[in-house]
C-alpha cells in the first residue's frame, strides 16, 4: 500500500464544443499523501474545480494519468469510477447540492442507500457530529445556508471516505459561518484522517490546510 493517495502525471484537460477547444489544465503533476490536508488555490477560471472533478472521477482527463492509492484510474470504466466515488470519495460543493425534496436526514441516508450500507446509526452519528440532530427532519429550504453546508459535509463524510474533496465550501457563507465550516473540516481531519483537498481562493480557508498548491492558468505554480 503506497503512502501516496492521489497522484497525477502530466494531467491535461481540454473542453471541446464542436470545433471549439478550450484547454483548461496543462501537465498538472501533483502528489497528495494519505491523510494530508491540501488546499488548492488560484484565481477564478484557473481550472481548480476542473482539477477537483478529475480527482473525484467525475470528469475524465484529456491526457496524462491519475492514480488513486496507486491504481491508475485514467482508463477506468464508468462503473469502476462510480464504485470509487461511492466507497472512497466524498464531495462538498460550494452550492451544497442537497436534494430539495428530501429532509436533512434523508439526504444523508440516501447516500448510504446508494452505498448499500445498512442504516446502523451512521446518519444520526454524523448529524450529531455537525450539530444538526435537531434539524434532521427539516428540508434544505427550511435551513440556513450554513446549516445546509453542514448537512452537505455530513453527507460527504458519513461513509468515512479516504478522500474528501471540497470545492469552495465557504464561498457562499459569511465569515462566521465560514469559520464554523472550516473548523468542522479541521475536526474531521483530526478525527478520521481523510485526505482532504480543499479548493478555495480564500487565504483564510487555505490556512487550515497543511499544504497549499497554487494553480494559475491551468498549471501548478507552487506546491
Amino acid at each position, binding site marked *: 500500500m503506497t503512502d501516496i493517495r492521489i497522484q497525477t502525471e502530466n494531467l491535461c484537460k481540454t473542453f471541446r464544443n464542436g470545433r471549439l477547444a478550450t484547454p483548461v489544465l496543462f501537465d498538472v503533476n501533483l502528489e497528495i499523501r494519505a491523510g494530508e490536508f491540501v488546499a488548492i488555490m488560484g484565481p477564478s477560471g484557473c481550472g481548480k474545480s476542473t482539477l477537483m472533478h478529475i480527482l473525484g472521477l*467525475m470528469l475524465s482527463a484529456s491526457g496524462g494519468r491519475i492514480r488513486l492509492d496507486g491504481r491508475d484510474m485514467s482508463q477506468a470504466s464508468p462503473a469502476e469510477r*462510480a*464504485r470509487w466515488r*461511492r466507497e472512497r470519495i466524498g*464531495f462538498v460543493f460550494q452550492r451544497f*447540492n*442537497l436534494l430539495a*425534496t*428530501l429532509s436533512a436526514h434523508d439526504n444523508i441516508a440516501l447516500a448510504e442507500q*446508494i452505498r448499500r450500507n445498512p442504516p446502523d446509526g451512521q446518519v444520526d452519528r454524523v448529524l450529531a457530529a455537525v450539530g444538526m440532530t435537531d434539524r434532521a427532519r427539516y428540508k434544505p429550504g427550511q435551513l440556513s445556508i450554513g446549516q445546509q453546508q453542514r448537512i452537505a459535509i455530513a453527507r460527504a463524510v458519513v461513509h468515512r471516505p479516504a478522500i474528501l474533496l471540497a470545492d469552495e465550501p465557504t464561498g457562499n457563507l459569511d465569515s462566521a459561518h465560514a469559520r464554523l465550516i472550516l473548523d468542522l473540516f479541521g475536526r474531521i481531519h483530526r478525527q478520521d484522517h481523510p485526505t482532504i483537498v480543499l479548493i478555495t481562493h480564500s487565504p483564510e480557508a487555505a490556512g487550515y490546510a497543511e499544504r497549499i498548491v497554487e494553480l494559475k492558468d491551468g498549471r501548478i505554480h507552487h506546491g
Partner: protein
Amino acid sequence: MLRLAWANLLHHKIRTALSVLAVAIAITLLLILVGLAHGTLNDVSRRMESVEAQILVRDAYFDLGSLSGGKLWEKEIPRLLEVKLDQQPAVERVMPVFLGRMKLAGQSQNVFGIAPQDFPYFIGSRRLVDGGLFTDADSARELLDRFEQAGTMGDTTSPAYMPLIVDQRLAAAGDLHVGSAARYGDLDARVVGIVQTGVAGRVFAPINTLRAANGVAVQTAHLFFVKAAGRLSTDQLLALCERIEQATARSATLVADYGRIMKGNFRTLILFVDLVSLIALVICFLFILVTIYTSVLERCREIAILQSLGATRRRILLQTVQEALLLCVAGTLLGIGLTFAVRYGIETARPLMTVEIRASWLLGATAVGIGGGILSSLYPGYVALRHDPVEALSFE
C-alpha cells in the same frame, strides 16, 4: 431510492396528479371499451346459453348476430325427435322460438315467442319474481279470430292484448311492472310477469299469440332449441348436430358455441374497440414519457448529485423507472376504481347495457400500466444518463 422517487412526485403535486389522471383515464377507457363490447356480447351469449338445451337449430340463412332470417316449419319437430345416436333416441325435447320485435324501455327488443309449457326450460333456476306465466290459447285465438274477421290488427278498442313476461333488468330500465301497458305494432300488449335477469330473452310472449300478432297463421319458428336425452359428451353432441343437419337440412350448432359465433359476427366491432384502446394507451404513455422527460430535464442537478455520490448508471436509470412506475401504478389503481364508478354510472343510466369487468382484464390492465410505465421511462432515463454531471453541478 424509492423514497426519493416518492418525494419527487410529491414535490410536483399538480404534475403528478395530471400524470396519474392521464394513466387512469387511459386505463378506464381501455377497460370500459373492452368491457362494454365484450360485456354486451357475452351477456347475450350467456343468456342464450342459459336455456336448458344443448343444440340450436336454425335456417342456414338465419343470422344469429341479428336474430333475423329464414323460418322453420314446426312439422320438423317430430323428425327432430326421431333422431337417434347409437340406435337410442337422442332428442328429448324440441322448443320452437318465434321472434318478434317491439319497442320497450326506449329500445327495440327481441321478443321470444315460446310455448308456455317450454317456459321452465327457458328460465332454468331463475324464477318469476312478480305476476305469473301467460296462457297462450285465449289471446291467440282471439287475435286470430280478429285477424280473420277484419284482416287487420289495428283495433285497439278490443280487450285483446298480448301478454308479456319481461326480465327484471328491462323492467327496471322501462319502469315496467305487472299490468304495465305496451304496444306491439298496433296491438296492445301488457306485462303479466317479471322474471329474474339472465334468461335468454328480455321479453317473452306466447308463441301462437306472437305469430298471430305478426299475421302468421302457420306453425313456424325462427329457432328450435333442442334438449338432448341424457348427458351427452361434446363429441356426442356434435355427432347429434350432424344427424340433425342430415335429417332436416338445417343448420345445427351447439348452444355453447353461440358466444363464439357472435364474436365472429362482430369481429370488426371488436377490432375497432381494440384499436381505439390501443390509441388511448399510446397517448397515455406518450404523456407519461413527456412527464418523465420534463422531470429529467428539470432535475439534471439531482442526477449529477446522485452520480457524485457514486450512483451507477443502472441505479440512475432505475430511479427514473421507479418514478414512472409509481405514476403508472397509482394511475392504474385509480383507473380501476374509476372503471367501477363509470360502470355503475352506465348501468344506472342505461340499465340494459352490460359493462363486464373480469379479474383477468384488471390484471391485464395492471400489466399494461406497469409495462407501459417501464417502457415510457426508458428514453428519459437514457437522456438522464447523457447529462454532463459537472455542468449540472456547477450551474443552476
